[in-house]
């Protein structure tokens, strides 16, 4: 492979990794804070994309589409937490996992009903519908924009986590729930907020990513699998670790598909198996 092509693929991998990050950050936070594996997270992503698309078609505004997609995600997250997850906190873990699984089935069929099974493609917004020359070859500006957006979201989350009171509260909750409650922190409210934030990011990512990934039924399953792989490989408890892992996985998947097409998504899961052999708590995870 010549250098310009390789470089373009690397950029693709990073862009994909950023999209993964939008999804995995929320998932990882929910898992770390509440011990919940939210299998519906991929559905938030997909529905956010579809809602954004509908709004885009109605208003011709990409930005409104983004807002709608993100809002749809947040709403779904809120409803999930408020009406379903609350009932099963503290029970055996499998109830919550299966509930979210059931929810993802419902959302998937619901999407099929509303938007049919025909795959949809979203055009990048006019102001980004161009390419830059990188190493002699044209590269779509939109993908570069994704990378920038991802970096901004990471910076925002990092600032939120490290520098604000809310962030400290969430961190306290992740470290020691009982202690945090004892200190008067309203854990249920924190849970709801975290859920909404994670789902917001997912919905946002679903629409923002649609010019690259497209929208089709089954997208939710594809992305949740990748996000789960990220959580295993990266471990939980570190935002930076999550980002790094996402970029790593994005690169492995993209480069893997290019270099060994017959093995497709196998590369990512082999990484998972290897990490499990060597460091079960994840590359950036904390033991115990």
């Amino acid at each position, binding site marked *: 492979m010549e250098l310009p092509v390789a470089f373009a693929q690397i950029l693709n991998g990073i862009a994909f990794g950023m999209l993964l990050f939008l999804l995995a950050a929320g998932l990882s936070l929910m898992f770390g804070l509440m011990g919940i*594996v939210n*299998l519906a997270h991929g559905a938030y992503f997909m529905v956010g994309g579809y809602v954004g698309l509908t709004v885009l078609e109605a208003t011709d505004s990409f930005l409104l589409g983004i807002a709608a997609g993100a809002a749809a995600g947040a709403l779904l997250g809120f409803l999930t937490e408020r009406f379903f997850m609350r009932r099963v906190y503290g029970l055996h*873990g499998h109830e919550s996992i299966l509930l979210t699984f*059931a929810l993802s089935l419902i959302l*998937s*069929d619901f999407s099929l009903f509303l938007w049919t099974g025909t795959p949809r493609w979203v055009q990048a917004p006019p102001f980004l519908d161009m390419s830059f020359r990188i190493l002699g070859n044209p590269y779509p500006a939109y993908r570069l924009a994704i990378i920038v957006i991802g970096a901004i979201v990471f910076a925002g989350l990092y600032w939120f986590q490290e520098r604000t009171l809310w962030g400290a509260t969430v961190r306290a909750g992740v470290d020691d729930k009982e202690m945090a409650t004892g200190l008067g922190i309203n854990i249920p409210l924190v849970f709801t907020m975290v859920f909404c934030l994670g789902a917001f990011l997912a919905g946002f990512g679903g629409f923002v990513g649609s010019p690259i990934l497209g929208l089709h039924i089954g997208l939710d399953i594809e992305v949740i*699998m990748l996000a*789960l792989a990220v959580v*295993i490989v990266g471990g939980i408890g570190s935002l930076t670790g999550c980002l790094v892992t996402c970029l790593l996985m994005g690169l492995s998947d993209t480069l893997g598909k290019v270099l060994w097409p*017959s093995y497709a998504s196998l590369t990512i899961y082999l990484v998972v198996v290897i990490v499990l052999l060597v460091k079960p708590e994840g590359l950036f995870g904390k033991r115990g």
Partner: protein
Amino acid sequence: MERASYGWKSILAAVIFAAIVLAVPLLPDYAVTLATSIVIYSVYVTSANLLTGYTGLVSLGQGMFWGSAAYVVAILTTRGLVTNVYLIGLICLVTVLVLSAFFGALALRVKRLYFMIVTFAFGHVVWCIAMYPMQSITYGYDGIKDIARPSLAPSLSTTSSAGFYYFVVAVAAICFCGMRFLINSPFGHALVGIRDNEHRMTALGYNTFLYKYISYMLSAVFSGVAGALFAYFNGYVNPAELHWLWSGDALMIMFIGGVGSFWGPLWGSLAYTGLRYWISSYTMYWFGIEGIIFICVVLFFRGGIAGFVSGLQARLTWQKR
């Protein structure tokens, strides 16, 4: 824990149950086919019940064993490599044990909450392998078709729906008996202890890793048996049998039937198959509806059907636990 009581009521119930089971082939063909699938699913869900209901490990990887065994049957029969059904069964068993020994040793290294994600990842790895590198053998998305029904003895073939039904029932009966022995044994007792308080179990001197490992492998065997039966039943095997969504379905069916209850898998399979058959004739959105049903069960009928039934039983006989 289940208690065996051999009063006349139980014997009567058992006789009636056996009669119903044996009389199924009197019904029209489509009903026999449905019943066969119910029995096969109940063996599959029993494997999930053993691992999740009794040992407390939630796995999204059961589909891997069901699918692998199904493919072994498909490949061996369609290519005429092995024709003896008992030998095929043995090969399936070995395949499933090797897979579970390998994946189990890795998956059990992680904390319980991670276990689910890890088993799902493993299941997906196997799916990917079947789809891509092994495509020449498995035919990828197209799947393998025209799997012939086995013949159990020179004059005993199972091509008729009744014949195959009895074959499946016989195998399932053996599995359920095995499960029964297991649950009532000291080993089974220890599994439930591990489910409810693993910390105390290690303090008491139990090597909980070994117990969980064995349970994982045994549950893989049940899945494999069901998967092999399915390959013969369906005549066609494709990658969906290896997909983790099917593992998720197993958990949901188990839940609907009643987690950790011996007959839960049968109740669940009955409900699932019946509902799916009925609802699918009206709409194509079966999965969404399955999700809704499941959520209702979790929120309102926590013990599943089995729990509901024993609640009824208790109220009818004024028993107190």
